[in-house]
């Protein structure tokens, strides 16, 4: 009963040896493990090992009221919790035919895009740290914190906002909030130049990340790659545009793509998405004052709320890729089944295993971070 990764390994008489990345390893995102078998410096086999963050969300959700699950869902993806809430709410609204007031939809988009910016800033930092450059991490996390301040003001919570309920959002925004959003966006806009200098145009970083973990278009489609990782292979697909939800069809934004499909391209796509998200936030900030009305459609007493029987497959675009909830209701107070399709369930397992093979020991961590895999989402 001794966990295997702590056991000394009797190496076969060859140049092959085994290394554990994780669960306690700075080169792994969160609490996750990747076992690699190396020949010299080259990985010849990789196996992902998850479940360190497994909490059994899908089971827990079957045991809780529809509304109680709202407090539970953001925890599924810790770095980017907002899409989880929104997606769950959208799915329940779809099941129970609840119309969300327009103002609530705009507020949700505002929150979603802020969350995307925060998540991307976090990812850059992590990615840079895997290559030994810590300053972007210090900067990125700090600048992300400014967005958390906005969340705190809007929703009362820094990370887990628990702001969305089926039917809308829980509170209207406080006074002067949009002004502070604009200030923060201006600040981040201004900071981008520093990030470019430090990180995105850093020749050594480019040298490190170019050609690492290359996915071509064909493979991306075959492996189920989604989100920025897919767009880095030259495919302009975005759930926000192509399977539109909320009021994204009223917004003007581009879908940035890159063709190389390597770690560098993925980082660059995120960098450009950051700008797009700021653009969306600015549009929302300009439009929101003119959109009056309630922020929530009342739902029945949550202690005795039965959602109509049926099933719904609802997708949103999280910062990691395509996030989907499959919810089955049998007309009871609790969901009958919730299946969460986290984008990382593809990226962190199959794709990572495939990309790791043939890659250098130095680049294993970078590959994982460039895929922006989120282990709690895999483990659920």
């Amino acid at each position, binding site marked *: *009963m*001794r*966990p*295997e*990764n*702590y*056991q*000394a*390994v*009797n*190496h*076969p008489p060859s140049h*092959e*040896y*085994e290394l554990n990345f994780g*669960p*306690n*390893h*700075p080169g792994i995102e*969160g*609490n996750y493990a990747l*076992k690699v*078998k190396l020949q010299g410096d080259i990985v010849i*086999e990789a*196996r992902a090992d998850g*479940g*360190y*963050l*497994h*909490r*059994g969300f899908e*089971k*827990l959700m079957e*045991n809780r009221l529809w509304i109680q699950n709202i*407090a*539970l869902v953001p*925890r599924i993806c*810790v*770095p980017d919790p907002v899409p989880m809430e929104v997606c769950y709410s959208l799915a329940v609204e779809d099941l129970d035919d609840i119309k969300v007031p327009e103002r609530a939809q705009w507020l949700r988009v505002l929150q979603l895009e802020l969350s995307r910016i925060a998540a991307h800033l*976090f990812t850059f*930092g992590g990615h840079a740290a895997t290559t030994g450059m810590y300053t972007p*991490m*210090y*900067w990125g*996390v*700090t600048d*992300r*914190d400014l967005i*958390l301040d906005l969340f705190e003001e809007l929703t009362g919570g*820094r*990370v*887990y906002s628990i702001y969305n309920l089926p039917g809308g959002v829980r509170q209207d925004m406080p006074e002067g909030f949009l002004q502070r959003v604009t200030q923060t966006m201006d600040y981040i806009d201004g900071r981008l130049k520093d990030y470019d200098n430090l990180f995105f145009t850093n020749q050594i970083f480019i040298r490190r990340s170019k050609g690492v973990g290359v996915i071509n278009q064909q493979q991306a489609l075959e492996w189920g790659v989604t989100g920025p990782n897919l767009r880095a292979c030259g495919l302009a697909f975005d759930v926000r545009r192509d399977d539109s939800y909320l009021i994204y069809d009223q917004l003007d934004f581009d879908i940035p793509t890159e063709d190389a499909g390597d770690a560098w391209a993925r980082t660059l796509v995120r960098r450009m998405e950051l700008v797009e998200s700021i653009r969306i936030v600015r549009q929302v900030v300009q439009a929101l004052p003119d959109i009056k009305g309630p922020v929530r459609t009342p739902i029945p007493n949550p202690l005795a709320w039965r959602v109509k029987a049926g099933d719904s497959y609802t997708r949103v675009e999280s910062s990691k890729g395509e996030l989907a909830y499959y919810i089955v209701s049998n007309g009871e107070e609790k969901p009958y089944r919730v299946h969460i399709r986290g984008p990382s369930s593809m990226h962190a397992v199959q794709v990572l295993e495939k990309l790791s093979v043939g890659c250098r020991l130095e680049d294993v961590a970078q590959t994982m971070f460039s895929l922006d895999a989120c282990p*709690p989402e895999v*483990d659920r």
Partner: protein
Amino acid sequence: MKSTDLDRIEVNPKTMPKRTNPLANVFDDLVRFCRSRSMFMLHYCTGCGAIELPPAMTSRFDMERLGIQPMVTPRQADILLITGYVSIKTLKRVILTYEQMGSPKYVIGICSCTVNGGMYWQSYATAKKLDEYMPVDLYIAGCMPRPEAVIEGLQQLMDKIKNDQANSWKQYYENYDYYLGNQQKLFGNNWQTPTDVIGEAEIYRLMGPQTLGEHTKILQQVQKPMEPLEMKL
């Protein structure tokens, strides 16, 4: 490369009971002060509370002001932050990690989940009370606690270390049977770790009446000497 020898422990003479040096107390105070001002925390994200550690470490809340730095391996670290729920699979690793850390070591339980199961009290996959498996020096409330709360908690731990109140690591040796019993209850009777806790307790002179008991008996029966495994994936 040779396979691992069982860890050999050297005893720091300072822990020996007889002390004749009149400056010993001053020296002890100095060491404790330095311990409190230099805490290396293990970089291990066990749960979701870990998301508030990067802000606490980075520029905005800058833990390094207090001499706290993240460290990569348990050997180097002094504090183990259990950031939220520990799934049973993680708990095994956490216990191994804890045992590998050098004494004195401190455990901080962050978030609700480490106290009474938190959000995941119904979950089959997470352990509920951290203090059943290892002694905890400090709890920080919140789900998850903000970076300020984490820093406040770390400052309290610093005070406790300075005042010689953070000695929970001794409890692990003194009550090893209790902790091992809970571990066995959760992981099965075949559970064992590569660290020879009983041996360490003897060397540290921390053998208490509760160090040995029925659970350690089971351990001694099933314990296999460390031997290298065949390489497999």
